């Protein structure tokens, strides 16, 4: 068991770290303040292969392993959680769905454009009435000549305001519960698709999050992803990888919180000394650092196993559950260490605090993760 990153992984990490520091970090605070979508950053990211990290080279991607992808997400998450989730939804959920469930024709038709970033993907599962209970989704996919017509609403869709295409889940059989759901590739600019207003979120301000409504939107036969009525298992499988990705985002945020806190506490003086000489601050820092290392190991273990094609339902859930909780504890301590300054927008930890919370919620709440883990334990 080797706990060291390989030379290749170190090169990837260094590249991602340099890119994040050079191209994203100078704009992160402003993007958070103005809610500006990182269009220029994404253009640069496209040129470096960051929109198709795990897409095989034969389909125009970088052909990297899943661990490399997770390493990149952490480095970007450290600098801008918004840019991280934009890339994560595109790479893990949209491209991930195509890779795992697309036919050869679909892969050839969609992957090269997704890997180059010509397509920016979104993932439409959640509805106003179906969050954790995704299986109760209501968007109707009615069979018509040559395809289906979709009617309904999806909510909290990341990239929804700007994406060119997406994977949407609809009910093809109203009587069959989770066995009546199908997954479709679709064009976000198709007739009948309406993008709603941006949600007024607590954080992830540079990420577009909107409601998307469908009115009789036509999707052709060839856009069915996987088998009809077998969409729910597709969704669940894709979410596995998604969990590890969000865990990496949470890890990045936590690491940033630690880095800021170590620096600040080494400069801030009170009572005649830098505050990092006080035991209370030292204990904050050591707890943050230890939990970050633990989260990293859980995430890497899940990422390596997923990349090798092994079952990771329990491991992915553990990684997300722990990393997001550790992240929340880290940003809480970070603001505390910064004192009053940490409560102002002049200090990075204020944004980290706001960005962190959603990692315990989306792509499966922490409560759902606990149930997933318990079920996996019971089954073994």
């Amino acid at each position, binding site marked *: 068991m080797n706990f060291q990153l390989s*030379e290749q992984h170190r*090169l*990837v990490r*260094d590249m991602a770290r*340099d*890119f994040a520091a050079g191209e994203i970090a100078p704009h992160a605070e402003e993007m958070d303040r103005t809610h500006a979508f990182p269009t220029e950053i994404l253009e640069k990211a496209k040129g*470096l*292969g960051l929109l198709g990290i795990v897409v095989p*080279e034969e389909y125009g991607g970088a*052909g990297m392993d899943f661990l490399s992808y997770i390493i990149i997400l952490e480095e970007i998450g450290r600098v801008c959680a918004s840019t991280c989730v934009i890339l994560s939804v595109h790479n893990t959920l949209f491209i991930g769905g195509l890779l795992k469930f697309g036919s050869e024709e679909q892969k050839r038709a969609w992957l090269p454009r997704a890997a180059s970033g010509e397509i920016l993907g979104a993932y439409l599962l959640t509805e106003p009435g179906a969050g954790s209970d995704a299986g109760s989704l209501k968007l109707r996919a009615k069979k018509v000549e040559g395809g289906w017509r979709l009617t309904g609403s999806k909510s909290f869709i990341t990239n929804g305001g700007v994406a060119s295409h997406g994977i949407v889940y609809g009910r093809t059989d109203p009587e069959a519960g989770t066995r009546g759901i199908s997954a479709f590739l679709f064009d976000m600019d198709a007739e009948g698709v309406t993008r709603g207003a941006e949600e007024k979120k607590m954080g992830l301000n540079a990420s577009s999050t909107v409601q998307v409504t469908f009115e009789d939107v036509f999707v052709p036969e060839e856009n069915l992803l996987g088998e009809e009525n077998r969409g729910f298992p597709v969704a669940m499988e894709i979410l596995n990888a998604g969990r590890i990705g969000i865990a990496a985002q949470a890890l990045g945020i936590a690491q940033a919180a630690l880095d800021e806190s170590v620096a600040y506490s080494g400069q801030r003086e009170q009572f005649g000394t830098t505050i990092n000489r006080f035991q209370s601050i030292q204990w904050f820092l050591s707890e943050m650092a230890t939990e970050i290392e633990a989260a990293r190991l859980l995430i890497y273990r899940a990422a390596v196993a997923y990349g090798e094609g092994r079952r990771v339902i329990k491991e992915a859930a553990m990684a997300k559950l722990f990393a997001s909780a550790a992240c929340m504890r880290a940003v809480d301590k970070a603001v505390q260490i910064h004192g009053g300054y940490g409560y102002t927008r002049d200090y990075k930890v204020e944004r980290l605090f706001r960005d962190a919370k959603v990692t315990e919620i989306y792509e499966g709440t922490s409560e759902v993760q606990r149930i997933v883990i318990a079920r996996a334990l019971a089954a073994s």
Partner: protein
Amino acid sequence: MKIAVLVKQVADTAAKIELQPDGSAVKLDDVQKVLNPYDEFAVEAAIQLKEKDGGEVTVVNVGPDSADEAVKTALAMGCDRAVVLRDGEAQGLDPAGTAAVLAAMLAREEFDLVLCGKQAVDDDAHLVGPAVAERLDLPVATFATSLEVADGKAVVGRDADGIRETLAVPLPAVLTCQKGLNEPRYPSLPGIMQAARKPKDVVTLADLGMNPEPRVARQGMTLPPPRAEGKVLSGEIPDQVKELVQLLRNEARAV
């Protein structure tokens, strides 16, 4: 055009430097190492020339095994192949000795242009580029901040204390690169994947028929004294100015 780029792996300038207990060398084991930033300008310049006029870029390195990562970075940026010297006997070489070895490696092929950074940010010696040129009996221009190649000549712009010079250097030649020459690209992800597959020739001192001895011996190293606390002046501004001038003249001896 066949271009060679000489690269060195150095400690990251942001890293905290510690010395070995006997003061003989820097402790490098746990320090983050990077491709020498000035060599990045050379790599970028070489790749740009190749992209414009075609040809091949070879990255050349003398160093320990850990330097493979710096070489890989250069390959990932877009160099085509690597030639590296890996030999325990080369460990104690001074810059002139390193230059002798590099020149021997370069002499085995016919390069039209040899590029390198003007200095390595660890020892700041500024020696290797000109020493290699001398060994190969090639013209050399240093601190290039602009570079164009046409009609068998390199047109090099450089800044020298208030003037800007433009030199025409007939090829083959050695040029050292200065900040401002270009913006080195990030290695792309496909580039990183391809780097692993690019050819790398490994040579030893025996292959070169060399047994170089350092001609300059390092006697020791010490860390610089910690920066003293600054002084904050107070009082009326005109009085502060008088005190500042007096301090600059008599204490700092800066004016």
